[in-house]
Each structure stands twice: as C-alpha cells, then as structure tokens.
C-alpha cells in the first residue's frame, strides 16, 4: 500500500506534539511558574531558545507545558464525545424511525444550536472559569458530531444485504451493531476523531484566549496569546511562538486525518490482491 506524504508529515507533526507534552511531565528547561521580571521579553537566544514573556518566564518551557494542557483538554473532550455519541448513534441507527431515533436526532439538533463557545459561556456564568469548563463545553459539542456521523454511516450499512444475512443467523440488533456495524464504521470514526481532536485544540485555545479555559498559573497556548496581545509590537516573538505551535499541531493532525481517510478510502485502494 502506498502511503501518502501528507500522512507522514501529519504523523510526524502530531507525534512531535505528543512528545512535547510527555517531556513536559518530567522536564522543562525552566520552571514555568518562576517569575523573573528583570529578565522580561528577552528575544530568542542561547539561554532562552524561544525568549521570555513579560514576566520573564521561559516561552519554550511554557509551550511544552501548554502542549500538555491542550492534549489533556482535547483528548478528554473528544473521548467524551465518542464514548457518548457513538453508542447513541449505533442505537439510533439500529432502531431507525423509532421514537428513540427521533429523540436522539432532535436532541442532536438541539445541541447543535449551542456552539461550544455558548456552552462555555453558560457554564462559566454559573460555575466560573476553568479547564474543566472547556472540556465539558467541547465534549458536549462533540457528542452530536459523533452521534450523527455514526448514525449516518450505520444507517447505510443497515440497508446492506450482509446485515440481512446476520439477521437470518438469528442475531439481534445489539449484536449486529457490535459485530458488523461498529467494525465497518471504525475507520470513519477514527478519521473524524483526528479531525475533532484538531478542532478541539483550536477551540481550547480560543476559550483560553477569552479567559473561559485553563486559568493561571496553568500555562496554555491560548492564554499565552491573550497575554502577548498588548506586547505584540514590542516583542512579536511572544505572540508568534504560541500561535505557530497551535498552527503546526492542528495542521499536523489535519494532514494525519486526511492521510488516514485516503488510506481507508476504498475508491483509492487497489483491487483484489
């Protein structure tokens, strides 16, 4: 099988991002909570590879820890979306046209009417800001995405003859959903998961930027940008570095997802071996 270059570039970028997050668990060049006002806004150089911010904190260290924040929020949020959304979608499709299916679909439409940002605003208005809010908001937003995708893919499978064959073997809806439907939609789900993961990272950055995400002193890329905004003319690197980190991570995940899609696409696969 030929692997597209975009898949490799995407995998490398995504992997780099995961490695950064893991490294930050055991080591960072500087302590990200140590303030050194005398050392503020140092441009990139030998001591501080990517410079320091307005509190004198090492930006490279903050990027490493920020990767951890992004990964944790995005991973849990997409996980929540999949763990709730996929079974809902499978069940709805196995009972297409029933009241349960209707309920799931109407519920989906309703959640779609609340963009993640609005959910975050609602939660923050009541419980105050925090990383958990971001997870809940992005997670809720992901549920209908996966429910709808799973249902759609499963519905088209339910019309196929091999499902009839399974019913002729006396298998019930739940068993068919697990044995035949889920394996056949797993590629689609995997591709969507990488895309949702990259969207979640963008969303987390946006929420953190407006103060609805991770709170100080937990470093996050979005808040680094918010703090850098007033200094952008003075020290552009403070704003450039976190932004580039977000772009390359999201780009990597998107390329990886596209590459996977092409890899799985039967139209692009070679015929019988």
């Amino acid at each position, binding site marked *: 099988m030929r692997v597209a270059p975009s898949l490799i570039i995407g995998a490398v970028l995504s992997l780099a991002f995961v490695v950064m997050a893991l490294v930050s668990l055991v080591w960072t060049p500087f302590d990200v909570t140590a303030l050194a006002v005398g050392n503020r806004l140092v441009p990139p150089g030998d001591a501080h590879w990517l410079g320091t911010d307005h509190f004198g904190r090492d930006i490279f260290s903050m990027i490493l820890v920020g990767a951890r924040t992004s990964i944790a929020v995005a991973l849990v949020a997409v996980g929540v979306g999949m763990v709730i959304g996929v079974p809902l979608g499978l069940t709805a499709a196995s009972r297409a046209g029933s009241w349960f299916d209707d309920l799931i679909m109407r519920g989906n439409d309703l959640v779609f009417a609340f963009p993640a940002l609005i959910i975050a605003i609602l939660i923050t208005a009541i419980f105050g800001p925090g990383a958990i809010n971001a997870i809940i908001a992005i997670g809720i937003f992901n549920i209908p995405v996966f429910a709808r995708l799973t249902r759609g893919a499963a519905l088209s499978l339910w019309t196929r003859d*091999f499902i009839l064959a399974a019913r002729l073997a*006396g298998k019930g809806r739940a068993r068919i959903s697990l044995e035949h439907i889920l394996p056949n939609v797993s590629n689609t789900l995997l591709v969507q998961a990488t895309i949702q993961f990259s969207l979640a990272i963008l969303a987390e950055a946006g929420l953190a930027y407006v103060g609805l995400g991770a709170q100080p002193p937990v470093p996050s890329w979005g808040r680094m940008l918010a703090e850098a905004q007033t200094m952008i003319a003075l020290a552009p690197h403070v704003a450039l570095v976190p932004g580039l980190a977000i772009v390359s991570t999201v780009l990597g995940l998107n390329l990886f997802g596209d590459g996977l899609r092409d890899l799985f696409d039967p139209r692009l696969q070679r015929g019988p071996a």
Partner: protein
Amino acid sequence: MSLVTVEGVTLSIGDTPVLNGVSLEIAPGEVLGLVGESGSGKSMTALSVLKLLPVGARVAGQIAFDGRDIIAASEREMVALRGDEIGMIFQEPMTALNPLMTIGDQVAETARIHTRVGRSEARALAKAMLERVGLPHDRIAHTRYPHELSGGQRQRVGIAMAVVLRPKLLIADEPTTALDVTTQAQILDLLRGLVRDEGMALMLITHDLAVVAGMADSIAVMDKGVVVERGTVLEVLQAPRNAYTKKLIAASTHVPVRQRGKQGGALLEVEGLCKDYALPRTSLFGPHETMRAVDHVSFTIKAGESVGLVGESGSGKSTLARAILGLETVTAGHVLLKGQAVHAAGRAAFATLRDMQMVFQDPYGSFDPRQKVGRLVAEPLHLLGSGAPKGAALEGRVDSALKAVGIEPGMADRYIHEFSGGQRQRIAIARALIIEPALIVLDEAVSAIDVSVRAQILDLLADLGDRLGHAYLFISHDLGVVRAITDRVLVMAGGKIVEAGPTADVLERPAHAYTKTLVAAAPRLAG
C-alpha cells in the same frame, strides 16, 4: 462505405490494457449488437468512438466516423460531433439525468448547444421529440424533474436527449439492463422504430444475446478486449465459429440436469399473507395511508420442491420473501414452516430460521467486508445457540460447506474482496447450506453475474438440491432462469399471485393476461 470503422484499436487505462486491437464496422442505418460479458471492453469501445474516455486512458489505432478521423480529431471537433451526429444512451436511467433540471430543458439543451435556435424553438423541438419517445406533454409534463418519473420514463428522456438532433449514429450502452422485462420490450420497440424512421445506425451494447437476436442486423462478440467474432445475426447465433461465442451461446440457453421427484409433504405453507406499508402523510393531521405490498398471498412448497416466484420490480416479491423468512412483520395471514408459525410471538422466527436460509442478489453487498470467509460462512451456526460446533468441529463444518460449493477450504482465511462475483455467490450458497436448511430462498441470486458463470451456479444449485434434498424458492425477474431450474412457478403482480402452476405449462401457455404480457415481452434466444 461504412459509417463507423474501428480498426485495430488498443486502449489502456494507466497500466491496465482494456482493448487489444478491436476492429468493427457499422454501415449507415445498420444495427450492430456488441455483445460481451463484464470487463470485455464493450463499453470502452463505445466511449472510444465518442472519445469520452476516463482520465489516464491512452488510445491507439484507427477510428473513422463518416469519413472523419476520430483519433486525430481535436476536442473542439468532438464536441461538435457528440450529441449532433453521434448520440449516446447510458445504462442507469436513475443517475444518467441531472436531478436539478426539468426533463424538457435537458432535452432542449442538446438542441441549444448545437444549433442557433432560440429558447422557445429548442423547447418546441424537445417537446416534439419527447412526444415521439412516448412522453406527451399532457401526460408527463415536460417541466417535471427526473425523480418524478419511473425508470422506463427516464430512459425515454435519455433517448430523446440522444436523438433530438437526429444523429447518424446512436450508441446505446445496456439501455434496458436496469429495467423490467415489459419495460425493456417497450424501450427496445421504441429504439427499433426510431432507427427505422430516422435511418440511424445503432450500436447496441448488451450482455444479453437474446436482446441482440431480436434487434440487430449483425453481431460483434467481444472477449478480453478483442472482437472474437463478427457476422450477421443468423451466422453468429446459428453457426458460431469462435470457441468463446459457442460457450456464450451454450451458457445463455443452458438448462441444468435435474433429477425430478423425491418430493415430500408440505414444507412451507403461506396462508392469506398481507403486508401493508405506511405511506408518508399527505396532509399534516390526516391519518397515515397505507400501501398494500403483499395482498392475500397463499401457496405451499413441498419438501424438495423447486418453486419459482416471478414478478417485476414493485410486484411485492421481495417483500413476500422477507415476510416468509420472518424479517418483516405481517399485517394479516400466517406462514408455517414444518407446521411451526414463523410470525408467532417470542423468538419463533429464530427457531424456523434453522430450516430456512437465503441467498442474496448482490454478491458484493451480502458479505461483511471486515470478516474472513470462514467466519462469514459459519455465521448461521449462531442459530444453534449453545449447541453450535466449536474449534475443530466448526472448522470441519465450514470446510465441508465450502467444498460442497466448489471453493477450496484453504480459502476460509481470506477476505471476501479477494473473490470474484461467481465465487462469492458460491460462498453465499455455502453460508445458506451450513445449517442444513430444508428451504433455501434465492432472491435474484444469479441476476448480477455473467452468463457463463450463471450457468455454472445453476448447475451447482441443481446438483445440491438433488443431493441434499432441500427445497428452493427461486425469486427472479428472469423467465429463462426460472424455466431452467424450477418445477412450479408463481407469477406475482401488484402484490397478488395472479397465476400458479407447473413451470412449463405456465410459461408455454400462460392463462392470465399479465403472464401473457410478461412471457411475450421476455426476449428469447431460440435454443
């Protein structure tokens, strides 16, 4: 002077050779039947004449149309030729029309782009041509969209689009394959009339020798990218010289040898079966209207008997099959298998399924692409519950089922995409056999496979029926197949069984008006 001359044309798409030196000729006004099985290159030959080839196709050789060199022609010259001097009709009437454009506009478009006529003149031309193909404006408004028309009507629109400028050559690629037998007969009639009235030449591409026999002046038989035999219809069908042609003709008229007899008592009893479907509401608060798909159907199948169920699409035969198997609830009536009710409350269907399995039409869609063949074939053993064989016993059972249908047991480790259409249908039969049912329902089981493979599958079915003694319910739109393999036939129309009796009697001396039309419409190759 011939209208079309194709001489030594080779074509490859990427690295795959498709045509290996095709030669044929069509005289003005001549009807040429281009016959071959799937993958023989007949469609590509037609598209080469129009120079409408897929991306990456390389073509060489000589193609002349009306004295013009097609291979050397510029795209601009080809655009002028297509639709004006050469018209083409495609196989799939469902997808060949633009869903967002009215049928009148689609026919008028051909006229608008080739001539300088105005909008209203083009409309008038389109109107006249749609009337000519049997779609008068007062019956089928020309402002309708394709989805509002039946398959046969759409194919008429496709024909109108192709012939509105009265081309010298009409290419029809399997124009009736997707249609019912009676509709097919009407469309073929229409084509015959158009060719005669307008003096058009027709290149009729088909896999069905019987269609060609009734339509064409001459035949070209294609196999593996080459024309293996050319001649008049009589020459080729009565005295074929080429080995492949002989094989094809033999397969088309093949009747498997069956030992009749050995029939037991009543196996399947269907009594007053009705199935209603709810239609979408027509008014917001009105009641659901229902459509009766199966209407008071009663019949019996005896153990070991082979029964055909014939009908066109929409006749209710597939719904009936699913209701018999317990895959559908029923509105009224009952189905008994070995005296046990299929539709009783609880899990009765589970019990009756041990004696009743099915083989589906589509050899591609009826297997889970993510499971290996061994697991696919073993699936019905789930019906045995805790008594299902495990380990070596399971393997042995799968092996013997595969062996029975002529598949190497060693192939159980492969995935289904590694098999050809014919092999897949064998595997489907193995899957039905593994539970040793008393009745196997075959839903158009040989409709999607090539003629030569079809003959082998029919032989296999006949042999298995003789050896294992199970009964068949053979659902098909193809009278030839039903004639070849069944003892008795049921004819279904509008949800009702309109005629039943011994196969030979019903098909030779139909009593009901509908059966008469059906038998008359079916193209037949004199055997």
